[in-house]
C-alpha cells in the first residue's frame, strides 16, 4: 500500500515540465568542456588555419602543451572531486626536477635511481599534505599554500646550497642509456613518421645533421603519459569501486565515512596521486630538456585548477569528470599556443584565459544544476 502511494507520486507530478530525452542524454558534466573545445577549434581553424597550426608539427606543438596541462589536471581533478585541492603542485614540479638533477648530475647516481628517489619523496610529501589536512581538519587551501612556500624555498635553497646555481644542466647526458629515463624523455612511433614523411604527409628537415629526417620525430612520451593518466583516471573514477569512494569522499565526507568508505585513505591517496602527476610532469621535462631549474612549475597549480574547473568539476568536491579536465587542458593548450599562431599580443593571453574561465564556469554551473537538482 505504501508502494502504490509513493510510487504514484513522481509519476503524476503535474507541477514540473518534463525534460526532452535528447536534452537529458546531452547533459553530462563534461558538456561545457565539449562545447568549449568545439568552439575553440572552430575559432582557430577560422583565424589561424594557414599559420601552420594544424600542420603536423603544429599539432604536435599544441598537443604537447595540452598534454602537459592534462598530466597535472588529472591529478588535480581526482583530488578536487575527492573534495580537496593542492596549491603546491607547481612547487612540487620544481622540487622533483631539482631532486632528479641533483642525484644524477651532482651526485652521480644512475638516472633511474634519481627518478625513483624523486617519486618517493613526492609521494611522501603528498602523503604529508593529506595527512595534515585530515588530522588538523584545516582547509587544504591553507595546508597546501604552506607547502607552496616550503617546497619552493627548499628547492631554491638546496640547489643553491649544493651547486651554487638555480639551474642544473647535463641530465640528458647523465641519463644516456638509462633503463627508465627514456620512458619520460623519449619519443615513440618514429618509424610511422618516417613513413609518413616518405609519403609526403609530414615535412622533412632540409638542412643540418638531421637533413632528410621527418620534422616530427615521433610522439613525445609526454603525450603518451597524458593519455595513460587520462585513461587511468577516467576508468578509476567511473568504473571502479575506488572511483565511487572518490566521489563519496568529496560529496560528503561524513556521510561516506558513516557507510564505511575509508575517506581518510582516499583523500591521502589523492594528495599522493596529485604529487605523483606533478613528478611525472617534472621528470618528462627534465628528461626532455636535460636540465632542472628551481623556478619550474611557477603558477602551474592555478593552471591545473583552471583546466579542471573548465572541465566541469565542482570546486567544493564530489562532482566532475576526468575527460572534462582533459578537455579543459586541451582548451587551455590550444588557446595559449593558438593565440601565438594567430599573432595576438601575448599579454592578452591572460585576459582571454580569465574570460574563458568565467564563461566556462557559468555554463558548467547551469549544466550541473540540471543534473543534480542542486539549487
Amino acid at each position, binding site marked *: 500500500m505504501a508502494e502504490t502511494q509513493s510510487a504514484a507520486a513522481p509519476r503524476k507530478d503535474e507541477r514540473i515540465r518534463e525534460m526532452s530525452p535528447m536534452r537529458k542524454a546531452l547533459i553530462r558534466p563534461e558538456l561545457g568542456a565539449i562545447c568549449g573545445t568545439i568552439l575553440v577549434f572552430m575559432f582557430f581553424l577560422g583565424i589561424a588555419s594557414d*599559420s*601552420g*597550426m594544424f*600542420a603536423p*608539427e*603544429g599539432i*604536435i*606543438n*599544441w598537443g*604537447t*602543451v595540452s598534454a602537459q596541462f592534462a598530466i597535472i589536471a588529472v591529478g588535480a581533478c581526482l583530488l578536487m572531486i575527492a573534495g580537496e585541492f593542492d596549491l603546491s603542485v607547481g612547487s612540487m614540479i620544481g622540487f622533483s626536477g631539482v631532486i632528479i638533477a641533483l642525484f644524477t648530475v651532482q651526485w652521480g647516481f644512475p638516472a633511474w635511481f634519481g627518478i625513483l628517489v624523486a617519486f618517493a619523496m613526492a609521494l611522501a610529501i603528498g602523503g604529508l599534505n593529506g595527512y595534515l589536512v585530515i588530522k588538523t581538519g584545516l582547509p587544504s587551501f591553507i595546508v597546501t599554500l604552506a607547502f607552496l612556500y616550503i617546497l619552493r624555498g627548499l628547492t*631554491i635553497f638546496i640547489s*643553491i646550497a649544493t651547486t*651554487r*646555481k*638555480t*639551474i642544473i*644542466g*647535463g*641530465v*640528458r647526458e647523465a641519463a644516456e642509456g638509462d633503463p627508465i629515463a627514456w620512458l619520460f624523455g623519449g619519443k615513440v612511433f618514429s618509424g610511422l613518421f618516417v613513413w609518413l614523411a616518405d609519403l609526403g604527409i609530414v*615535412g622533412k*628537415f*632540409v*638542412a*643540418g*645533421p*638531421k*637533413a632528410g*629526417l621527418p*620534422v616530427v620525430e615521433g610522439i613525445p612520451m609526454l603525450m603518451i603519459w597524458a593519455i595513460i593518466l587520462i585513461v587511468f583516471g577516467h576508468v578509476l573514477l567511473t568504473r571502479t569501486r575506488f572511483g565511487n569512494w572518490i566521489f563519496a569522499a568529496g560529496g560528503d565526507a561524513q556521510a561516506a565515512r558513516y557507510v564505511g568508505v575509508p575517506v581518510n585513505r582516499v583523500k591521502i591517496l589523492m594528495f599522493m596521486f596529485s604529487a605523483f602527476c606533478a613528478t611525472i610532469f617534472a621528470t618528462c*621535462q627534465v628528461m*626532455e*630538456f*636535460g*636540465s632542472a*631549474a*628551481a*623556478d*619550474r*612549475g*611557477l*603558477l602551474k597549480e592555478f593552471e591545473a585548477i583552471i583546466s579542471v574547473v573548465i572541465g566541469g568539476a565542482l570546486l567544493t568536491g564530489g562532482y566532475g569528470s576526468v575527460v572534462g579536465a582533459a578537455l579543459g587542458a586541451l582548451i587551455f593548450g590550444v588557446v595559449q*599556443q593558438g593565440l*601565438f*599562431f594567430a*599573432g595576438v599580443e*601575448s*599579454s592578452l*593571453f*591572460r585576459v582571454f584565459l580569465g574570460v574563458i574561465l568565467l564563461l566556462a564556469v557559468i555554463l558548467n554551473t547551469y549544466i550541473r544544476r540540471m543534473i543534480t537538482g542542486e539549487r
Partner: protein
Amino acid sequence: DGERFVLVSHAPDSDSWWNTIKNAITVAGGQMGVEVEYRNPPTGDLADMARIIEQAAASNPNGIIATIADYDVLSGPLSNAVAKGIPVITINSGTEEQSKKIGALMHVGQPEYDAGKGAGEKAKAAGVTSFLCVNHYITNPASVERCQGYADALGVELGGQMIDSGQDPAEIKSKVMAYLQGNPDTNGVLTLGPTSAHPTLAALEDMGKSGTIHFGTFDLSGEIAEAIKGDVIAFAIDQQPYLQGYLPVVILTNLARYGVVPGNSINSGPGFVTKGNIALVEKYAGEYR
C-alpha cells in the same frame, strides 16, 4: 617583402628590460618592411619557451631570433628549427660556442657570467672587498651567474652576499637596508636591473650611504641614468639590447632577400655606461638604450 620573423625571449611578460628589444624590432621591422613577432613565456618558464620555439618553427617563419637562456633546454628546439631550414640567430644570453653548436647563423649578445665578471673587475679596481648582490629574480639561472661572475672577479665567496629580494620595491628596499645594517662593512653593491636598482637607490638614500658605496648595476633606466650623473651609481652594464633586436632583423632580412650574411658573431656589449658617456645614453634610456 613581407617576410615574417619571430623573436623568442625567455623573459616573463612584465620584464621591463625587453622593451628596448621590442622597440628595436618595431623600428627594424618598419625600416625593412618586414613583420617581426615578439614571443615570450608569460611566467618566464624556460620549458614553456622551448614550446614557443617549436611553435614558431611550425609556423614556418623566414627566420627565428632567440635567446639561449638555457642551452640544455633550448638546443633541441633551436637545432630542429635550423634543420627545418629556418635561419636562426641567437641573441642576448648564451655563448658563441653554444650558438655554433646549435647551427645558428650568429650570436648577438653578451654572456651573463662574463658580464658579471666584468662588473666585478671594475669593482675590484675600486677597492670593493665585501659586496651585496641584490637578486630580484633568483629563480632565473642567468641572475645567479651574474652574481657569481661578480664574486669570482672579486675573488670572494658568493655565499650569503647574494640576497633573494623578491620583486616588491618596498621589500627590496627594506631587505637591502636590513642587509646593510647587519653587514656594515659592505662596500660594493650589484643590482641586476631597474627592478632592484631603483629600490636600492632609495635604500642608500634613506641610509645616507648614497655615493659612499660602490654601486654597479645591469641595464639602464631614467632613474639609473640620473644616479650615474649624481655619482651614486658607478656604472651600468649596457649590453646594448637595441642592437640585439635590431641587427638580427636586418641581417635576416638581407639574408632572405639577397642571401648575404656576415660570417662572425657580434658582441653587442658589454658597454659600461658611466658618467663620462651618460649624456647620449640618457636621452633614450629605457626605450632605445
